[in-house]
């Protein structure tokens, strides 16, 4: 335990930026821990990493870590990251977003980033609500759930973020939950090492707002619910849609080698240069 704490402290701006703003028990801390452990295992130096975040409780993550960090605006983290990656492809760019950041206000950027396939890692903390602004319904709030803007139940239907990423063309897609901390470490590491656009959706909990409004108990109860609802991707393949109705899958949903934007662009440029040289 002590070693784990020591390791995490190596990567935190612990002298300047603490105490943090997260509620005790929030899943964001577990995600941050998993991310740090994964980065440590990949062997990248602190200065190789750029952590880009949006705005929200999750967006605060970039404030606490001792990497290159870029705290952007709500919804635009992926586009800032696109710029960073294009201008300096050597940097290892990791983007942390909330479900609102990634699929509401920034939903457009998310599907296009997946389609474009830059070598970026996107971590999306899905806590089913807009945490920072007080728990309004978001694109991942389940049908019927209560929120600050749906006190009698949400009438919209939720996105499945990981499936959306697969369909939009992401090279690598994984889903974990904060309950399954070990798996989360592995998913983060694989996503960072993957060449191409890699997405980790993390099922998390906002017990303070979403949990309270929906009588789901505290952080511990909500994490237990994650344990009960999570099914490994491999096992889910053998189950019927009815059996999977109130479940979510965890594991790797897609892993494919797709042409990467920067490489493709280089090829085009070389081909054009050769063709133009031939005309001389």
């Amino acid at each position: 335990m002590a070693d784990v704490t020591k390791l995490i402290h190596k990567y935190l701006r612990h002298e300047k930026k603490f105490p943090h703003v997260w509620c005790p028990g929030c899943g964001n801390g577990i995600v941050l821990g998993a991310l740090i452990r994964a980065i440590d295992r990949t062997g990248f130096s602190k200065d190789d990493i750029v952590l880009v975040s949006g705005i929200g409780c999750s967006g605060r993550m970039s404030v606490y870590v001792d990497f290159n960090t870029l705290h952007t605006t709500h919804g635009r983290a992926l586009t800032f990251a696109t710029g960073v990656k294009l201008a300096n492809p050597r940097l290892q760019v990791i983007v942390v977003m909330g479900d609102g950041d990634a699929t509401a206000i920034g939903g457009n950027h998310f599907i296009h980033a997946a389609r474009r396939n830059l070598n970026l890692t996107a971590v999306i903390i899905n806590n089913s609500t807009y945490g920072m602004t007080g728990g309004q319904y978001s694109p991942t709030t389940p049908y019927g759930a209560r929120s600050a803007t749906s006190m009698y139940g949400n009438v919209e239907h939720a996105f499945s973020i990981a499936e959306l990423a697969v369909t939009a063309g992401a090279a690598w897609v994984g889903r974990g939950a904060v309950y399954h901390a070990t798996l989360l470490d592995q998913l983060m590491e694989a996503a960072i090492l993957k060449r191409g656009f890699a997405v980790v959706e993390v099922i998390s909990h906002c017990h303070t707002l979403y949990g309270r409004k929906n009588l789901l108990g505290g952080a511990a109860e909500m994490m237990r619910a994650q344990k009960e609802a999570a099914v490994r991707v491999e096992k889910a393949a053998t189950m019927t849609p009815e059996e999977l109705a109130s479940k979510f899958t965890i594991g790797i949903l897609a892993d494919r080698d797709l042409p990467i934007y920067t490489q493709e662009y280089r090829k085009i440029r070389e081909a054009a240069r050769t063709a133009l040289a031939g005309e001389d």
Partner: protein
Amino acid sequence: MAKAKTKPARFHREGMEVSIAVSHAVQLARAEAIAAYPITPQTHIVEHLSSLVADGQLEAEFINVESEHSAMSACIGMSAAGARTYTATSSQGLALMFEILFIAGAMRFPIVMTVANRALSGPLSIWNDHSDIMAARDIGWLQVFVKNGQEAFDHTVMAFKIAETPSVLLPMIVNLDGFILSHVVEALEMPDQELVDQFLPPYSPRHVLNPKAPVTMGAFAMPEIYTEVKMKHQVTLTNAAGRIQEVWDEWGQLTGRQYYPVERHLTEGAEILLLTMGTLTEVAEIAVEEMREAGLPVGLISLRQWRPFPFAALRAAVGDAKLLIVCDRALSPGGAAPPVLAEVRSAFYTQAQRPDIIGYIIGLGGRDVPPEAFKDIVAKAREEVTTGPTQEFHLYGVRG
């Protein structure tokens, strides 16, 4: 204007958070369609409205869309379909609406919007100033500022009536200072539904999307017509001033609370005038009262109506004062002057007799402005009059 003589007993007094009061104003105005995206410090207004709609206390459609760009777009759709439409936002949210704000103005949809004023990023700040709305100065909407919860309530109700007037048909923003006003609890007086219904009849749109009588909206303008459309917008917006005052007078008759585009506090015999907007006005009132007691001939004018800019009312309020100190809550980096100062100066440029005009930018990004700040500013400005201007304007209280 005749003051209301007897006030009918159709009001009740209640203490509540100003955001909640605004949502009750929207409820009493019987808004029919609301689209919004949450942003601090606007959230309580919209959350409360969503509950009022869900509870069945307000017969309206409510949607929490996926961004402010979508919110304003949806509002245009709602208004085009003939609904009385409302939204609220703040700061980054207003900035994200930017593209659509101009469309709402030019297409003449009488949407009412509350802007809980908050500083624009960066640096990231959730606290109050006017940089959000000042960046949206030229969107072609009617715009007013309020200084307390009662005014926030009153102006929200009145905005619908003004905006929907057939000769006006323009969207309207009610600016209220984020947190400083949106999140305080105040005692305020609210009229009953019947009274508001008498004051504000249902919206009867002139042009609506209707399958039985199709119309084209949002059409392309060739160079031959674009300028004329702009001229029409400019003239309509400027002329709306008359209608605004009419509606305010009518409200004054009903409630005893009379509003003007430029309001005065202890201006009689004042040689020095402070000019403020929004909540700073109440703080400045305290400072001015104390300065008066100390024998300084200081008065206060506040700009309630920002668009259309009340040139005549401002000149009348300034009268023959010798020194006018304009307080802005936004910066115009690299510009001639901060937004309010620039407009005030141009209002006096053509005047043979005009005061010395000195500008101070105060209260940026939530920096507190106590009454002492106004006293200090007055002292500094008086000195500057004798020494001659040192700068185009001043950024007050910069540390280090």
